[in-house]
């Protein structure tokens, strides 16, 4: 495997083989997604989400009192979002605690979440969202946003709609949906999207970042791909939330 590693270092790893991606996916196919709602007992709302090899947990607390007090806003709730990667989430142990990258991700993700949360209903209070990456495999910010959105619904926080998020990457001059680690590391561009989805319709873009280069036409194509992917994720988020309450009522019926 040494030769393969050397190939990667020199940057000419082939990411598209015979019209298929390295893990056998088509260009517009998502990684398998698994969502579990209400996994944490002490949190108001929580969610465990797997997106391919990504594993993340989200916890939502609030609306609750803000500490320190001076951060409170007299007319609306303050939303706090903490994205954090566990030291063991990446191949080489990461130093624990916030770094420049996770602070930036926290900020952009918070702004995405703020687009749907009805902050104006809870003056002088705070809504805290904590997401922890347990295992990382590219696209953790999108996975975390999906998990956070489900956890917020689980907490009963008033929202205008849901946030669904997915990235599009450009590898070997081809656009691919939901890139995995190899595609992210050795690709030419990476564009994470997050959409505000209401009633099975995309209302607006809540997050859009990009590194690398794509042409204008490629970008338009990427947006369309991301929209399709996000709609699929949205359906899975909805199912996961409903499933939690469906199971409970089935158990009740079997008691009778």
């Amino acid at each position: 495997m040494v030769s393969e590693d050397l190939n990667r270092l020199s940057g000419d790893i082939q990411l598209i083989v015979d019209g298929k991606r390295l893990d056998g996916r088509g260009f517009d196919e998502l990684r398998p997604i698994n969502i579990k709602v209400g996994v944490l007992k002490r949190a108001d709302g929580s969610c465990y989400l797997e997106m391919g090899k990504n594993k993340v947990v989200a916890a939502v607390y609030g609306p609750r009192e803000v500490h320190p007090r001076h951060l409170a806003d007299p007319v609306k709730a303050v939303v706090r979002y903490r994205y954090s990667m566990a030291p063991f989430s990446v191949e080489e142990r990461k130093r624990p605690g916030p770094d420049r990258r996770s602070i930036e991700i926290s900020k952009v993700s918070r702004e995405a979440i703020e687009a749907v949360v009805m902050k104006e209903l809870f003056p002088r209070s705070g809504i805290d969202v904590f997401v922890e990456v347990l295992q990382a495999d590219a696209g953790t910010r999108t996975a975390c946003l999906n998990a956070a959105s489900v956890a917020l619904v689980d907490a009963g926080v008033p929202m205008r709609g849901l946030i669904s998020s997915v990235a599009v990457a450009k590898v070997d001059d081809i656009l691919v949906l939901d890139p995995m680690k190899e595609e992210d590391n050795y690709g030419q561009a990476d564009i994470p999207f997050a959409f505000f989805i209401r009633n099975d319709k995309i209302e607006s873009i809540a997050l859009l970042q990009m590194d690398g280069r794509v042409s204008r036409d490629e970008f338009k194509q990427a947006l369309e791909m991301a929209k399709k992917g996000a709609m699929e994720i949205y359906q899975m988020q909805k199912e996961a939330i409903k499933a939690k309450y469906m199971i409970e009522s089935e158990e009740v019926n079997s008691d009778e």
Partner: protein
Amino acid sequence: MTRPIVLPGELLASNPKVAGAGTYVDKGKVYAKFLGLLDKSETSVRVIPLKGRYIPSVGDVVIGIVREVTSNGWAVDINSPYQGFLPAAENPEMRPNRKPNDILEIGDIIIAKVTNIDPKMKVTLTMKDRMCRAVRFGRIVPINPARVPRVIGKGGSMIKLFKTELGVQIIVGKNGLIWISGDRRKVNIVEEAIYIIESEAHTEGLTDRITEFVKRRKGELNGQ
């Protein structure tokens, strides 16, 4: 009459006149605001929350814990994003030559009523009501505030059931804290019943099942 579960942002109606609690109107369409059960009729659409924090409203009876004693009253934790304040004058136990510290200490539990909420969400409480008192005995059971209406039951049917069947005293705070007092074994039954109500609040035929449960447990108690 199964009520479907709705998620935030689900379209409920296209006539803004029918919008009720748990919904919001945007561009003339009515959407769900939070996760809940849909209750739709000809004249109104509302969403009954499945989860969520207690938001105070005037007239609610709440159970709170004294968190702070000041020279003119008590700051009370009412299990909500907002703290309540009970002015000294609103406590009937207050006498001219006594200080707030002599009457209620930090950690004391009180049953109070919400009298006023200002735009900054400052909540004022009173204890000048028949129901209100300082809690010195009994048991407090915490539940999800969104399930309180089910614990009370239609027209207080659940409470009536507990009171007549088991002879316990019970006061349900709108903020999800319930005070029960009486024979210890009977209080145990009520507590168990409340937890059943909490976990099955969104299902049907609950009152009948709870009635049966209480009667069965009461029979077991008498049989022993």
